[in-house]
């Protein structure tokens, strides 16, 4: 039982990170119907930006802040203006293909231009262990989980409680009526991209200490975040949280009780089961198909 709890809790920490990446993904989908196959690379790049700022002597907090600014500019503004806006009129698939191309370019550009090796990354949390009823939990696990959870709820609160957030939701639901109501639609869509970029930087901050900064670290992270988003419900932010936690926990349990070799297939199996019974995801709303 203690083993089970142990696995469960460390799975929650990993799952929280999947949730963060998945949340950015559902945000972009809701705001602009964009599916970003480079989401994993959007986490990888900030990790290296932060390493870069730290290598020139900036403390972690400062390099985090600078990376946020840079990420909003590059992964938010440049990405939206340079790739999504020109492709939007052609429908979803060209955007998917272009973001696949982008992920290949980002991954291999970094490998060729910087380094193919894994780089260590300082942890936000001290090396400390908690022992609760025989279950050992690291401070990093608790902290990661807490920070990720707080971020998810802050984004949720922003979306539902503030005027800007509500305007963003209005744009997502019906772009035309939103613009009739005087909402600045392009700006709202940009906010979604900006939030996505910030979430990616936060995910990088939380995930890199354990996974190390490596050119291909985004690959599996991106995949699992996508599966998590779909499991939870593509058009629901709370779904991203649920999906991420489910994938994280199940993966950890499966690695221990079934086979570590097939750990990466867990997300897939849950995904298959969920879409067979509930194609819109666990918390998703049904969308009527258009003729």
């Amino acid at each position, binding site marked *: 039982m203690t083993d089970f709890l142990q696995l469960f809790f460390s799975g929650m920490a990993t799952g929280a990170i999947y949730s963060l990446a998945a949340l950015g993904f559902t945000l972009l989908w809701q705001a602009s119907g964009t599916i970003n196959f480079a989401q994993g690379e959007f986490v990888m790049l900030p990790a290296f930006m932060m390493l870069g700022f730290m290598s020139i002597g900036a403390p972690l907090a400062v390099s985090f802040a600078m990376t946020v600014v840079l990420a909003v500019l590059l992964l938010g503004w440049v990405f939206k203006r340079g790739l999504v806006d020109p492709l939007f009129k052609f429908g979803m698939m060209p955007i998917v293909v272009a973001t696949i191309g982008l992920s290949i370019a980002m991954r291999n*550009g970094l490998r060729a231009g910087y380094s193919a090796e894994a780089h260590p990354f300082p942890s936000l949390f001290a090396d400390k262990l908690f022992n609760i009823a025989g279950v050992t939990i690291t401070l990093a696990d608790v902290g990661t989980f807490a920070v990720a959870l707080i971020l998810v709820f802050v984004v949720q609160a922003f979306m539902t409680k503030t005027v800007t957030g509500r305007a963003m939701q209005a744009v997502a639901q019906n772009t035309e009526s939103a613009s009739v109501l005087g909402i600045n639609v392009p700006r709202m869509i940009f906010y979604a991209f900006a939030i996505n970029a910030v979430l990616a930087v936060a995910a990088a901050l939380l995930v890199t200490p354990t996974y190390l900064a490596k050119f291909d670290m985004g690959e599996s992270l991106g995949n699992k975040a996508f599966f998590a988003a779909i499991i939870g419900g593509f058009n629901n932010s709370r779904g991203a949280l649920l999906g991420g936690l489910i994938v994280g926990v199940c993966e950890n349990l499966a690695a221990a009780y079934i086979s570590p070799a097939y750990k990466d297939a867990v997300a897939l199996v849950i995904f298959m089961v969920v879409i067979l019974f509930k194609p819109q995801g666990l918390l998703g709303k049904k969308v009527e198909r258009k003729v």
Partner: protein
Amino acid sequence: MKKITLILIAACAILLLAAPPFLKNYGVYLLSYWLVFVIATMGLNLTVGYAGQKSLGHAAFFGIGAYTVAILMKAGFSFWLGLPAAALICFIVGIALGFPALRVQTIYLAFATLGFNTAVWLVMRNEEWLTGGTFGINNIARPSLFGYSLEGNLAYYYFVLGTAVVLGALQWGLLRSPWGKAFTALRDNPIRAESLGINTRSYTLLSFAIGAVYAGIAGALFASLVQFIEPAPFTVGASIMMYLMVVVGGPGYFLGPLLGSAVGVILPEWLRFAQAWYLFVFGSAVVLLMIWLPDGLLSIPDRIKAKRQAREASAARAAAAQQQGAR
């Protein structure tokens, strides 16, 4: 078909038939490699370009084909049994994978197939008793045909070329049959296709399964060509590469796979000097191509034609307006 297209095709055919004996061994090998990918992406073009199903797991079928042949040949069976077995298994798996595809569309389907690819790859890597795991299967023999040995690179090249031509002709026929029309109807407007009495379910499954058969045959040829297989060429990355080849060449264009595979297989050899930067260049090129030419390289002639027609139409309108003004 226009004269110029026919001349181009004839020139290509002569080049493909006559040039290889003058090439070095590696050049012949590379051309065979390219043709294998042409066959595989021909199948993917059918699924993606003609039937409009977003499949990102094509390398899994490619791998299933390769491993089927390799395992059967290691068990003492002939290549000529392995090849149809590979095609048949891929057909069955393709149908089986098509079923979830019926429930989900577009992006969900892309992820389902992507996940399927991961699962197949994990089996290849982990089930050592069957696939040799990361050590792979080596010394896969090349077959002989009617007493001629295909052991040599040149002989094998002509064999792959022949297979590619036969499969290409089959696809050409298929696309002109009612089935082919149904596929395109499915892509262009699934709901209208359904209301016209097309059984969308079975055609979705079929487009998947036939595409998988092409990949399976390509995989079988691949195993015999490289003579050593391991899980690496059958990853999700390889699937994505094949998808990009189809998109770069022009999805829904019959000759798209020829061009797309050349970009994916032969171009990297020319760009050897770029080495590590090649994939970066390739990825960036895909992004730019999508922005400027979302329908692929082969859509360039159509674009030029459309532009000319638009210009002529506006000239005609202007002339008509002038005439009206004169009267």
